[in-house]
């Protein structure tokens, strides 16, 4: 008896409460984005959580549009958005732009970053870029079985400490680690867990000053658009795509479109 009441206090106890909603999700309490490099298993994670059968396959670039689904957990409704794989937030191919725009301007409550444990270093480039623009993220360190087979050992705890966000080791294909992932998503969404994400340190004071000046100016013109610091930095770098988006006022539209979801 005593044992049972202990269980009830533990958040893992509630995993039986998971209800996969498929695409029926009219009233989402939280929006969760699933992002990551190509071919790391985002769609498999998405399918596990929503009970949908978004086509998966062992080749990069399988998902070209964003797919949506939902689940309910602990009495709350979560809308999950499966994004096309992308190597960085800087590049401009059309499917990468789908992912980038949503992470930047869709204001997801939680971003699940799916990473390939066998290629962690390269995957971290995207992770760090995403952590620049959101402080509500969880790293889903997928393909742990493959890493193990290749004698790759990852210190999950210190990785979590370095990144400042929870790191969950998973094998999405075997459905292991999924309940931990769900509870972590819930903890971040409800604000019970506060992330302290890693920020790129080696930036000069001069650059930071310039970013501040420019993003203040942007704020006047695009009120309510999130991640103005990021937009400012891209403008300073001379990113042609973002310059265009300012000129044509596409940014304004994007902000409005994606945040009403």
């Amino acid at each position: 008896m005593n044992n049972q009441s202990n269980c009830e206090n533990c958040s893992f106890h509630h995993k039986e409460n998971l209800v996969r909603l498929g695409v029926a999700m009219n009233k989402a309490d939280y929006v969760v984005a699933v992002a990551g490099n190509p071919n790391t298993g985002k769609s498999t994670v998405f399918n596990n959580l929503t009970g949908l059968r978004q086509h998966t396959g062992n080749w990069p670039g399988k998902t070209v549009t964003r797919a949506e689904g939902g689940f309910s957990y602990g009495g709350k409704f979560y809308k999950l958005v499966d994004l096309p794989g992308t190597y960085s937030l800087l590049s401009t191919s059309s499917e990468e732009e789908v992912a980038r725009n949503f992470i930047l301007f869709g204001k997801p409550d939680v971003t699940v970053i799916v990473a390939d444990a066998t290629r962690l270093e390269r995957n971290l480039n995207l992770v760090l870029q995403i952590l620049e623009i959101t402080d509500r993220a969880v790293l889903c360190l997928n393909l742990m079985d493959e890493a193990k087979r290749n004698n790759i050992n990852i210190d999950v705890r210190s990785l979590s400490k370095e990144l400042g966000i929870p790191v969950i080791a998973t094998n999405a294909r075997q459905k292991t680690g999924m309940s931990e992932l769900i509870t972590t998503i819930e903890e971040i969404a409800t604000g019970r867990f506060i992330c302290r994400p890693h920020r790129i340190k080696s930036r000069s004071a001069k650059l930071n000053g310039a970013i501040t000046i420019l993003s203040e100016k942007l704020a006047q013109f695009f009120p309510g658009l999130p991640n103005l610091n990021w937009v400012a930095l891209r403008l300073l770098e001379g990113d042609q795509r973002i310059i265009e988006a300012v000129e044509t006022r596409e940014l304004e539209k994007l902000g409005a479109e994606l945040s009403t979801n």
Partner: protein
Amino acid sequence: MAASNNTEKEEEAILSLANKLRWDLGVDLHDIVIESIYEDATRIARKTVEIKGEQRGYYLDKSIDKIVTSRLLGFPIMFLVLAVVFWITIAGANYPSRLLSGLFLDTIHPFLKGFAANIGMPHWLTGVLVDGAYISVAWVVSVMLPPMAIFFPLFTLLEDLGYLPRVAFNMDSLFRKAGAHGKQALTLSMGFGCNAAGVIATRIIDSPRERLVAIITNNFSLCNGRWPTQILIATLFIGSAASPHWAGILSAGAVVGIAVLGIFFSLVVSWGLSKSILKGEASAFSLELPPYRPPRILKTLYTSLIDRSVFVLWRAIIFAAPAGVVIWLLANIQVSGSSLAEHFIHWANPFALLFGLNGVILLAYIIAIPANEIVIPTILMLTVVSTGIIGMGEGAGVLFQSGSLADIKDILQAGGWTLMTAVNLMLFSLLHNPCSTTIYTIYKETNSLKWTLVSTFLPVAIGLTVCFFVTQLWRLFML
């Protein structure tokens, strides 16, 4: 006016402020930003990742890749894999096909007819519903389902294993020489499932020019709806030319031949487009070869059966039922002594014979624009109508009763089919307009009527040209 002027100035103000600040910061800002990200990533990885011993899986992958992507063996292995997949499909689909058609056509159909007669259903209504809609759906199910239920899981297993990117890797240099994007090999592979899906998949190609090339040529990948046609005709006319022992292998070889011919046309047309209306150079790209992953066989069987086969089958059924009604009506509405179908067939015959086809085939391809899946059932039904075979059908516009392969061949031969007709049908099945779903998808993706029309009519023109030359040469040398 004033307001819009004002905002325009605002935009300029932002950009000029950015410009001014950029000058202060120095020109290599972008590199510095990127480098700082890479530095941090490396530092964190070094702290948290430990590799002990050798990475056996990695080396195994590498040595497999050395073989399957090698210059010498890459293509032979590819063709062999394809051939094995088709051989299993052809060998395995025959028996269940017969079983299903026995059930649907020999047992259930007479029962439905009897039932309709008992409740006094008017003749024309029985005709439209039971002889039209029901029969063509039953046909699609018994002809389409068995090969699909075998082919899709096999294809999905290959996909799960990670073989597709290797195929793309092998074909990359060919596509590059054709002025197309190397990733077109991937969209082409997707087209082998469904051309509409293949057209959507071209979004992975960045350059609009190369994307258009990939969209226009996607139709040269044989899709779901056309595999069963190829397999059936190859089994009936080409496999039977050999001894029973070799029949399966020969028909599988013929289907592989058609698929490879499709890839060939994809390359040639891409090359032609890149040299003419879509001029330009191929852009470079990097393609990651993912690790081989052991496929989850049971899950693959389940999902490909449920998601792909049933989905495609459902589509075939909702198109087959109305098509069945149309066929029955065409065959039964009489104008000056003969049916509408016969009028068209007689009118189109002289033209069609130039291409080694016949009026029935042309009419079937018009009726089957919504779904390629129903071409063969439509041809059979129209052949019965136009030749008036007695004892096979039950009146005009009724598909014959028995579904055995020999009977199908008898009917087609009664309709004047020869080996040449079969070869031309296989070619025309590869080279004709995309189905209406694909055409609509092309329009949505390109947003251009012009490119939609090009994608629709270019394959038909090529198909008719190829069939014309095959027929004329055949007649020259074989007669």
